[in-house]
């Protein structure tokens, strides 16, 4: 795979590289990022089923909360934020 297949996405204000065809969850895992969300009691949560069933990997994507990152393709310049379930806000 050549470098043209790579692009940047923003995670909690930092830039990481994603590859064309990756879901957001895949890109995060490939960059060693495993804690994607915290529960109401502040326990970390990450990718669990990886196929859209368990809803554990929800994050704020481009301002919209509760997006399943395992079902959402990474796109150039998309902005991903760790979700805190104790205070979900709309950042649109």
């Amino acid at each position: 795979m050549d470098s043209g297949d790579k692009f940047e996405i923003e995670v909690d204000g930092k830039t990481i590289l994603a590859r064309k065809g990756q879901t957001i969850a895949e890109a995060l895992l490939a960059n060693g990022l495993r804690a994607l969300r915290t529960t109401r009691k502040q326990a970390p949560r990450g990718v669990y089923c990886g196929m859209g069933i368990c809803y554990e990997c929800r994050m704020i994507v481009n301002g919209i909360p509760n997006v399943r990152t395992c079902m959402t393709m990474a796109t150039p310049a998309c902005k991903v934020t760790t979700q805190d379930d104790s205070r979900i806000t709309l950042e649109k």
Partner: protein
Amino acid sequence: MKSNTIADAVVIGGGVVGTAITYFLARNNMEVILVEKGAIASGTSGRCEGDVLVSDKVHGFDCRLTKLSQDLFPEIANELDYDISWTRKGSLLAIENEEEMEEAKKLCTQLTAEGLPVRILDQYEVHEDEPYLAPDIVGGMETDCDGSLNPMALAYGLVHGAKKMGARVSTHSAVTDIRLDANGCIERVATEREKFVTNHVVNAAGVWAPEIGKLVGLDIPIKPRQGQLLVAERTFSVARRKVMEFGYMMAKFQSSGYTRDVTPEMEKYGIALVFEPTEAKNFLIGSSRRFVGMDTSCHIDVLQAMAQRAIRFFPVIEDIKIIRSYAGLRPFTPDHLPIISETEIPGFYVAAGHEGDGIGLSLITGKLISQMICEQPLAITTEPLKLSRFKDG
């Protein structure tokens, strides 16, 4: 079959109405038995929203009755061992156009005269209040005293409280027979499992009240009216409190022939916006009204029309996921008032037909029936609530 048990009163129906009656009777030192064919809150009370509202009532008697009931909730919430999630954040009726605004102002004057804390919000104020409302909403009517609670917790809390005061509760025990004595007075109630000797029976069976009425030859004109609800995922705070649409009330109550700008499906399914944020940060979307017998299944076209209506008022929820839907049967009466009444059969009482107001009216119903049975002065006249009003067509 067990031998006969003797009781001062038998209450039939373990929803919020029957459990409230049981609670108030027990509090009045009556030996009371609650019988329920399923589990507590397994019918209408477990399939509703949990509203305690005066803002959607007709001014006058309906309003006064509801306010009396509403004002009992702080006291009862305090008395019960269960947390019933009683909150009193008020409610907002969203106003779509100037025609509605004029009516809202008139209604506001009438409700203020009844002593209710009601206020009109202009376009700026309503968006300050609920920033996610569609920009073209021209205003709102705010009612500060409105509240909400968890109806299952209320029913179980009342049962628990009544038991502590000596009431007995028999669930999964359908009433099969009610026997009268030679003078036509209540003598005995039989369920699938037990027999109770008593002089007082309260029919609080909601949509099943007509069946119980038939056991003593009484015609009770209650029909099940189905209402469906959507549950959205936990998300950001879309609205801080209950929001409904003013136009539906206007179309329902006014004789002016006002019609809303809605789709034929919304008209057909009786759809009106009800937006209810829950304690758990989910929200409920209603509402629909259909006569489909005892059917409690949801239908996608109804759910879609409800969602569409909600998006009209809160465009921001378009991307929010729905996680569940459910339907309940509201006990509908021809004049939209409940039946809280003695009957031509001495000792047989009816407390049913509250349609969408059962949670809100549960406590005053419990209090009134308990006052009737204990021969105490009534908290409010029950003349408009008598079963006999439906006679002579």
